[in-house]
């Protein structure tokens, strides 16, 4: 269940980055007509995510470019600090959403 929520958050982040990058690309003179479709997909996705988690995501997004980051070899790929092994063990369980003790970003573990 939690994994599904994290997957939705990663998808939301990818979509947000795509939308913001398209804005930059549009400024370069490219034509973008389909942005409304992306905005609609975002709204649909947002409606599936719980309010508290979405609030955390939005708050983190204001501070960092990426609010949700993977953990690889026990290292948070947001701030590159080591994640305690105990947290990595718990993080791989499908029970809760965890954040990095160093930077506060939401974490997900790569298989």
């Amino acid at each position, binding site marked *: 269940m939690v994994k599904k929520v994290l997957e939705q958050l990663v998808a939301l982040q*990818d979509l947000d980055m795509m939308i913001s*990058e*398209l804005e*930059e*690309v549009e400024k*370069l*003179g*490219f*034509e*973008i*007509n*389909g*942005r409304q*479709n*992306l905005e609609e997909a975002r709204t649909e996705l947002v409606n599936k995510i719980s309010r508290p988690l979405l609030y955390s995501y939005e708050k983190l997004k204001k501070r960092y470019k990426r609010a949700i980051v993977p953990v690889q070899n026990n290292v948070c790929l947001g701030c590159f600090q080591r994640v305690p092994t105990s947290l990595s063990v718990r993080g791989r369980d499908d029970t809760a959403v965890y954040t990095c003790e160093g930077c506060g970003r939401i974490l997900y573990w790569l298989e």
Partner: protein
Amino acid sequence: MEAKDLLNYFNEKLFISDLKATTKEEALIEIVTEFEKLHLIKTKDILLEMLRQREALGTTGIGKGIAIPHGRTTVVKDVMIAFAKSNAGLDYSSMDDQPVHLIFMVIAPPVEESNKYLPVLGKLVEVLNNHSTREKIMAVKTYDELIKCMSEV
């Protein structure tokens, strides 16, 4: 970013001096096939699909005979630019409805540490906005001539 920095992203083997394609779809396939032939990607389908989706959001034919299909995809590890020239010109549904002669395909991975994708795209648009540079690139026949052209900007 300087114009000469763009040279780092070109590849001699991703240089097509005479594109056979007559439509946008054929052009995308022809260029992406070169990536596949060089084993820069395992399969062309994912890259092609990304490019088609990007075109559905709005044409990358920016007018004046130029198209810059671009996007991020998981199938590449570095930012790359492929160059293709159509001497006859092809129908690309460009913003100015004119045939496209020069295609610069810019492909980037989803995340890059150096974050060069947008600066590369921006610099390319800036360089190609210059009429005399466009004319010079239209006349190139070899990769070395293209590099010489780009390094003189």
